[in-house]
């Protein structure tokens, strides 16, 4: 079978998803799926940066914030500007990509762990800035009453269903683009950089440009998700984009399998499901039998933490890994052949 066809076959289950709102009339279910969709989109974007190019971005929520605030400022009463939702999808992904380049250009020469910390700093600065510039952003109250998107004259309003379809559409596009990238000249260059940056440069790969494009593309996914999520929520405020959001998305990747698109989707969906259904429902359950002092939702951060630690220790390739990643991470644990030491050495040599 043609490998491209085989690859696409893995995504067949997605084709059944459009039917869900026709079968399930519970608005809260559809609402959950739409929200989960935004996080799948975020995870697909972060996967380009972390999974494909091997750059740890700990401030990914900043681009989500930039996307959301772009919509809030350019499609609401805030400044009386009303750019249509569909235009904003493109515009915001472009704006986020530009910020990705602005952040990446000076920092991408740094070694991996320093880069991670710099992105974290950026992730702190961005929401703080939105918080502080209160004359434009209403500070901690955020911006509300955003324009409701409309399609062929139908306004989306407060129903979750149209957003569900928007998210689904964006995810389908996102999956296609990401999987195209993975199997392209650029995708190979990212893989090479992840494996051995110095050797990659000797292949004629401009590693800075390749990493920048990973940053920009990852950010643009985040911008898309930001617009769709902001429109759906009808509100944007700085506390939606804290560090824990970046870590949540990272946990989704680690759980599902960095670098593997189906794994990323499954990991992302699973964590959203646990967060929005499993923890609250099981809390309700134990409350109903009288154990009212237990609230499982208080353990949310513990859950992210345990996922990160346990997965790295026991299954670093994720639940649904790519063949390559499994080999990379598994053998690295048992075989010091590509040890951290050696990576340091070449980075020293490259400087």
């Amino acid at each position: 079978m043609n490998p491209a066809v085989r690859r696409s076959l893995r995504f067949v289950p997605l084709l059944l998803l459009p039917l869900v709102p026709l079968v399930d009339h519970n608005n809260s279910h559809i609402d959950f799926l739409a929200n989960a969709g935004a996080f799948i989109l975020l995870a697909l974007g972060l996967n380009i940066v972390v999974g494909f190019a091997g750059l740890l971005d700990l401030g990914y929520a900043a681009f989500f914030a930039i996307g959301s605030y772009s919509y809030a400022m350019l499609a609401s009463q805030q400044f009386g500007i009303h750019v249509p939702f569909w235009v904003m999808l493109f515009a915001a992904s472009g704006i986020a990509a530009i910020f990705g380049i602005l952040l990446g250009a000076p920092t991408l020469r740094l070694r991996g762990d320093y880069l991670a910390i710099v992105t974290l700093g950026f992730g702190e600065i961005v929401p703080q800035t939105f918080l502080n510039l209160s004359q434009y952003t209403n500070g901690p109250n955020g911006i509300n009453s955003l324009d409701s998107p409309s399609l062929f004259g139908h306004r989306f309003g407060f129903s979750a269903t149209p957003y569900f379809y928007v998210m689904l559409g964006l995810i389908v596009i996102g999956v296609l683009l990401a999987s195209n990238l993975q199997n392209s000249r650029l995708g190979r260059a990212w893989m090479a950089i992840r494996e051995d940056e110095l050797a990659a440069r000797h292949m004629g790969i401009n590693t800075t440009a390749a990493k920048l494009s990973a940053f920009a593309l990852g950010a643009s996914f985040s911008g898309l998700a930001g617009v769709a999520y902001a429109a759906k929520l009808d509100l944007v405020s700085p506390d939606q984009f804290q560090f824990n959001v970046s870590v949540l998305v990272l946990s989704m990747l680690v759980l599902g399998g960095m670098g593997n698109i189906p794994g990323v989707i499954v990991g992302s969906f699973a964590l959203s499901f646990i967060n929005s259904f499993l923890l609250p429902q099981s809390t309700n359950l134990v409350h109903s039998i009288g154990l009212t002092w237990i609230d499982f939702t208080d353990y949310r951060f513990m859950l992210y933490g345990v996922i990160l630690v346990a997965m790295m220790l026991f299954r670093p390739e994720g639940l649904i890994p790519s063949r390559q990643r499994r080999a990379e991470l598994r053998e690295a644990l048992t075989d010091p052949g590509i040890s951290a030491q050696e990576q340091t050495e070449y980075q020293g040599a490259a400087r």
Partner: protein
Amino acid sequence: MDVFYQQLINGLSLGGIYALIALGYTMVYGIIELINFAHGDVYTLGTFFSLAILTGLGVSGEVHGLALVGVVLVTMLAAMLLCGITGVLIERLAYRRLRNAPRLAPLITAIGMSFILENVMQLWKGPSPISFPAVIPNPSFQAGGVEIAAKQILVIVLAIVMMVALQLFIRNTKMGKAMRATAQDRDAAQLMGININTTIAMTFLIGSALAGAAGFVSGVYYGTTWFFNGFEAGLKAFTAAVLGGIGNVAGAMLGGFLIGLVEAFATQYIPQGAQWTNVVVFSVLVLVLVFRPSGLLGEAVPEKV
């Protein structure tokens, strides 16, 4: 001008706390090249332990005379010990297995540990800020128009004493030499008969104990704490370690004091500066990493640990 000197003292006090935390970052990075993301939370844990010990001792307000010395010493040393043990356990459980893994794996694990610790503290003391007894009476000393509180003197002196002690330890003891050797070349150190596991555990013990001391003084200094304290303080202390030259003990101290001063002066002299201090400090981090990743003292004293 008085405002300037007042902020100078405030900055040095803040800086003393950052410096104590930064020492732990720099030691661990020096020896295993890991940004121990959970270190900031070990510091917060230090405040929580101190609070628990003070409660156990029945202390809820000012203490005077010899009793004060006793309370301070007992609480701080106990907090240091408990934090030290926590640090060693974290290394043993979460990091040791990943020593040869691709370097981002232990960093991700460290972020996970940080979240676990924060959640544990949140479950322990709740999500809101909690108050910390003002153990140290507040005789303020006047020098010119500048007020210096007793607790500020405590922070600054303590930070300097700890650093000098640490320097002496690293330079003169056998364990200190083992640490330096391991930092330089782990394999060679092992061949020389140094027990790598013990040495690394010791590094975590000392670094975390210093964070415990920082936790105690910050409790006394601010009179309040909460479970999420360590995130921001940790980032600032890491910035301090990088600014001073990571892996460098004196650098961590210098960086700590500098970051404290930057924060104090930014609060004073930038319009609405208090809102922007984080932005300023992280900008410092980015600028240092981009333009001088070896830090201020990184080359002058290449010795690691």
